[in-house]
């Protein structure tokens, strides 16, 4: 077995044994499954070697439990970006990410310099791994420019941010009141773009995992649900819906692969990630929407996980940058 296959198998086995059982009820009730996260950490899934491995983990976890997959995505992406910018800043545990603010995309949270040290003041909303991380990467304005800092979780007041989907994946509003901070990057805009890009790339794989599950459950349902005297799988209209889900899974991996390659080769990857995100957010939406449609009334019931996929698909790519980021980035790059 190749190294990749070994990682894939380990992630798939772990997901089936530890993550699938806690995917349904906790998501419904917005419960953070801390034990599952601890098990992920213990097995090394929250700090893997590189983005290729992180993608494998994201996809396998995405098949079983998208909330937990997203925890792994954020933990791995933040760990990698810290390594890339200043490995000496890395500490044990999980790192979350705080960028959004109330009423604006970013900019109102400020950093102040006092000697060699920094403090941060203001409020971030919907911080990734909010309330669960050991530390956060925080984008804050330093001398009118965005910079990136690391703030210990104990120095931020966290208030749970509940959301449409991925409800077991923790997010929180964070309030900083002159919180001690360590500077990670003076060019916060660049770090932000790169971190978002890494998250978006990995989210494509979470989405591919979700699409894989949507394809499996939809195929099974179509083969067994009988209407008009035959399985609905016999109907071209249903076959089209099924095919689109499979195409989505294929597309999701196809668009993300060049971005992964770029990261691995040490090349710039932000534009590749933007293109991937643009296609991916539509693809996974369509896949999960088709899954609901194939299931008819059953797809709308909270007794089954189908409706969850639909909620999760739109939560997944709404986690990172503002809405026109992919198009704006790509066009700016073309016009430079």
């Amino acid at each position, binding site marked *: 077995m190749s190294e990749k296959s070994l990682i894939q198998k380990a992630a798939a086995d772990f997901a089936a044994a530890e993550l699938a059982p806690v995917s349904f009820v906790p998501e419904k009730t917005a419960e953070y499954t801390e034990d599952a996260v601890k098990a992920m950490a213990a097995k090394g899934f929250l700090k893997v070697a590189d983005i290729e491995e992180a993608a494998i983990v994201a996809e396998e976890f995405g098949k079983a439990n998208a909330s937990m997959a997203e925890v792994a995505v954020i933990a791995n992406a933040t760990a990698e970006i810290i390594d890339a910018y200043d490995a000496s800043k890395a500490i044990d545990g999980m790192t979350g990410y705080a960028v959004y603010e109330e*009423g604006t995309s970013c900019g109102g949270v400020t950093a102040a310099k006092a000697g060699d040290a920094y403090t941060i003041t203001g409020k971030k909303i919907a911080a990734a791994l909010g309330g669960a991380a050991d530390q956060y990467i925080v984008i804050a304005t330093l001398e009118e420019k965005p910079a990136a800092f690391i703030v210990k979780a104990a120095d931020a007041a966290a208030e749970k941010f*509940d959301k449409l989907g991925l409800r077991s994946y923790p997010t929180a509003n964070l309030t900083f009141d002159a919180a001690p901070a360590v500077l990670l990057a003076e060019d916060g805009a660049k770090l932000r773009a790169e971190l978002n890009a890494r998250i978006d790339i990995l989210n494509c794989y979470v989405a591919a995992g979700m699409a894989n599950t949507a394809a499996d459950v939809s195929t099974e349902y179509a083969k067994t649900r009988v209407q008009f*005297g035959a399985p609905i799988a016999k109907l071209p*209209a249903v076959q089209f819906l099924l095919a689109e889900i499979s195409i989505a899974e294929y597309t999701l991996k196809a668009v993300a692969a060049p971005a992964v390659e770029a990261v691995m080769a040490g090349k710039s990857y932000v534009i590749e990630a933007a293109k991937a995100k643009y296609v991916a957010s539509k693809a996974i939406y369509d896949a999960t*929407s088709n899954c*609901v449609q194939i299931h*008819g009334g059953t797809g709308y019931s909270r007794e089954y996980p189908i409706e969850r996929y639909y909620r999760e698909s739109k939560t997944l790519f709404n986690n990172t940058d*503002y809405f026109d980021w992919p198009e704006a980035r790509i066009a700016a790059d073309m016009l430079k």
Partner: protein
Amino acid sequence: MFGFTEDMTEKQELVRKFCEDWVYPNLAEIDAGKCCPDYIWEEWCKIPGFASPCAPKFTGGEEMPFATCCAMWEELGKADLGVATGFGSNNLGSFPILLTGTDDQKKEHFGNLLQGKFGAFGLTEKGAGSDAGAVATEAKKEGEYYILNGDKCYITTSGKAIETKSTLAICASTDKSLGSKGLTMFLIPGDTPGLTAVKEEDKMGIRGSQTCELHLENVKLHESRILGGPEKGIGFGFKTAMMTLDAGRCVVAAQANGVAMRAIEMMVEYCNTHLDGGRPLSKNPAATFKIAELEAQTQACRQLVYHTAFMRDAGLNHGHESCCAKIVATENAINATRVAMDIMGVNGIKKGDPSTVDGAVEKLYRDARILSIYEGTNQVQRLVVTNGLFPKKKKK
């Protein structure tokens, strides 16, 4: 809206006022439950004619034109699709009676509804969803009586109709050998022994509308309970159900337009108040053009709904137009909530107060997804439109 009658404008304004007073402020409570709270329904019923807008004059109702109902349900759908669906069940559950009921049946049914009771339309079963002709609930004739046995699922407000001892329109097979031509519609009093609501569905959205499974065990009905009476009604159930859906689908389309309008309203408010690079998002065409496109689609959908409604009021066949309206309006509404999510980012996914821009879109997204499923999935609508475009050649 151009072409609205005075009645349409007046009733729509009344609904708007009602929603401002009772629906918007209570959206969080509505979304947390599985059925619209009684006090909201009670307030609705205080407005003359609203408990049953289509009730004929001779039953004490206002017999509102269908176009007026569409204008009302657009406004109700804008405030809450669940409430609109639940309250609309009094129309859906009444169309079969309007279409084929005897005068006595109409008096009984609308008498109930005008007192503030709920109606329900019971067609769907586990094995008979899109294939409505496969209804397996059996009605066995015993002398002058029929004994009904079977189960129904996803029946809107049926639990309430039973609880309030109202009347439900239920489809059953009086002759299995005839398939869909052996289906018959019954008007069943809610307190008939053997008729029970066994389960209340827990749904992703439209939580202001109750959806129940029904169990019928030896439900004994006199043959006079057949809609239209035993002479005319036997074997007419499927036709009645399809004609009921001709109207129902147009109302669904009207509600969908309300959902799209609310999504647009929320996006506009968000763009006016949210800063993007120091400027309001409303100055960014990347956002505003997306909203403009939805506005254009929504205006077109509204035209189609009112065109269809006016056709129905003029006594013209409108099944084809109803299906077309349902396809475009529901898919536009679902898309509008998706775009709203895109534009609002984390503010869209937030579970906040659904009566404000702070939580409205998260709920709208969950609510809207039902639109392409109920009252015939959108594939079934396409099937009906296809059959209209490619009619079967009649055998000579």
